[in-house]
């Protein structure tokens, strides 16, 4: 527990480096010929970066089975929100200087700004419901459904970037490829789940779990994150069943025979 807290502090500080870098550049008057453009680009880039990092937590957790990774997800997601706020403020304040008419026109007329603005708006409810209290109030399942908005927001972010470049699509396409990979992982898991659920509908759910993620390790309840404990009952049940299974790597004889039949 102590160890994780330290890691959390370190990650928190690492997440502030892009801001520190910009701040130092501004302080030393070292942001180049067009500082406002540099700030806009940098905060935008880091928003996308943090969205992708946040979206990679769950796949990483599933692949590595390091359950504690989820403890950083909220913080990383909030950093994405933090940088998008800076990005938006830069646009409103430094770029347009509160010219509401011009901003309104931009949001309506310029597809890349419409999409970017929508991505920002979509993240607001997620940031607001990121507290433990809100998870409880909403209930795990509903909370999880709401937080799937991050998929839309990230897609919007990549499209926003793609539509603003003049000719060189390389960088937005790289972000797009990573995002497709991360969303693709979820689709694959989902597709496999439904397929397997169909097949195993006659069998015990523990077999399904084992078939998906391999032999389970024994875990004590305190290793489960507060999130996963609060998340939908289905997930909690799955975790509990794994614990109950005592980590045997070979399916019981009865299960095997049932699979064969």
């Amino acid at each position, binding site marked *: 527990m102590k160890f994780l807290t330290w890691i959390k502090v370190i990650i928190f500080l690492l997440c502030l480096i892009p801001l520190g870098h910009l701040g130092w550049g501004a302080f030393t008057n070292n942001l180049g*010929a*067009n500082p*406002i453009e540099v700030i806009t680009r940098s905060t935008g880039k880091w928003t996308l970066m943090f969205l992708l990092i946040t979206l990679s937590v769950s796949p990483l957790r599933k692949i590595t089975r390091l359950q504690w990774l989820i403890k950083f997800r909220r913080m990383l997601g909030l950093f994405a929100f933090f940088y998008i706020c800076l990005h938006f403020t830069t646009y409103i304040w430094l770029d347009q200087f509160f010219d509401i008419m011009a901003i309104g026109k*931009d949001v309506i007329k310029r*597809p*890349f700004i419409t999409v970017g603005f929508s991505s920002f708006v979509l993240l607001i409810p997620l940031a607001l419901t990121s507290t433990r209290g809100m998870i409880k109030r909403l209930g795990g399942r509903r909370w999880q459904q709401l937080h799937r908005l991050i998929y839309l927001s990230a897609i919007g972010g990549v499209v926003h970037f793609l539509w603003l470049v*003049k*000719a*060189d699509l*390389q960088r937005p396409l790289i972000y797009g490829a990573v995002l497709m990979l991360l969303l693709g992982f979820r689709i694959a898991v989902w597709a496999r789940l439904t397929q397997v659920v169909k097949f195993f509908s006659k069998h015990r759910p523990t077999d399904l779990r084992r078939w998906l993620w391999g032999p389970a390790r024994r875990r004590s309840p305190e290793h489960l994150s507060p999130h996963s404990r609060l998340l939908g009952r289905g997930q909690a049940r799955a975790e509990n069943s794994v614990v109950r299974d005592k980590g045997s790597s070979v399916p019981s004889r009865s299960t095997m025979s049932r699979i064969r039949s």
Partner: protein
Amino acid sequence: MLIKKPSDIKGSEITDKETYLNRRRFLIETSAAAAAVATGFVFPGHLGDSGEAHAGTKLDGVRKSPLSTGEKKTPFKDITNYNNFYEFGTDKYSPAKKSKSLITRPWTVAVEGEISRPKVYDVDELIKLSPLEERIYRLRCVEGWSMVIPWVGYPLNALIKVVEPTSKAKYLEFVTLYDPKQMPGQRRGVLDWPYVEGLRMDEAMNPLAILAVGLYGEVLPNQNGAPIRLVVPWKYGFKSIKSIVRIRFVEKQPKTAWEKAAPNEYGFYSNVNPEVDHPRWSQARERRIGEFFKRKTLMFNGYADHVAHLYKGMDLKIHF
């Protein structure tokens, strides 16, 4: 002793693979230096250091011009470090870093097509075709920023008069060097290389259109389009093609590099026009580099008195 090895090459490095590969370049550089001295040019600086050997040299006998603006000039540092020159990368800060690989001497410019006197000019000969003038112009980039740049050059029409266009010459087509070895940005197909730009004959004849060879009274730095470039101040910056190797007089309107890349976004004319927006962003305002507040963009970048008559009767929403 004109031809000598740079002192930092040790004997043990002579047969080095890299040295071997660079031999061609080394020969070009040293012969360029020899040619320069032979033709009466003396370039201070380091002879072996390509590109930079020429940039920064003071240009003599530059006359002032009534066509210059009196606005505050953008600092040299910004003009030479914030560039759109995709041949050296699409990031605005990379041309300053990567353009050292451009070898600007010897350099030839082929002037050809529908003219009575086609000729392949050595760039030093081309530079001496007409007296050099300082032209302090506004430059408005299609991306929404602008600068005030003291160019050194001479009117394009001086060259046009010398080469005597035929009656078939309706347009001029300009072409940038294509050499991915010197221009690393060309190794990626961001644009359909080489870069091509064009002007209508009457636009090219307008006294505002110049061939620029210098900046702030000095030889043009590589990242700004050395050794010779076009400057058409009433059009968006990308029309002012850099590092020209060919000027062809043609009958039909040339297809420009940006037109090929996105015909609905970048037209042949590309005149600065606050009323016709880029399909993806507004062109009504611009940020002058070094200023915090945006300013209103002026019709034809403030050169309407000089050029508006060229487009009389044309719908600029169609001919954007």
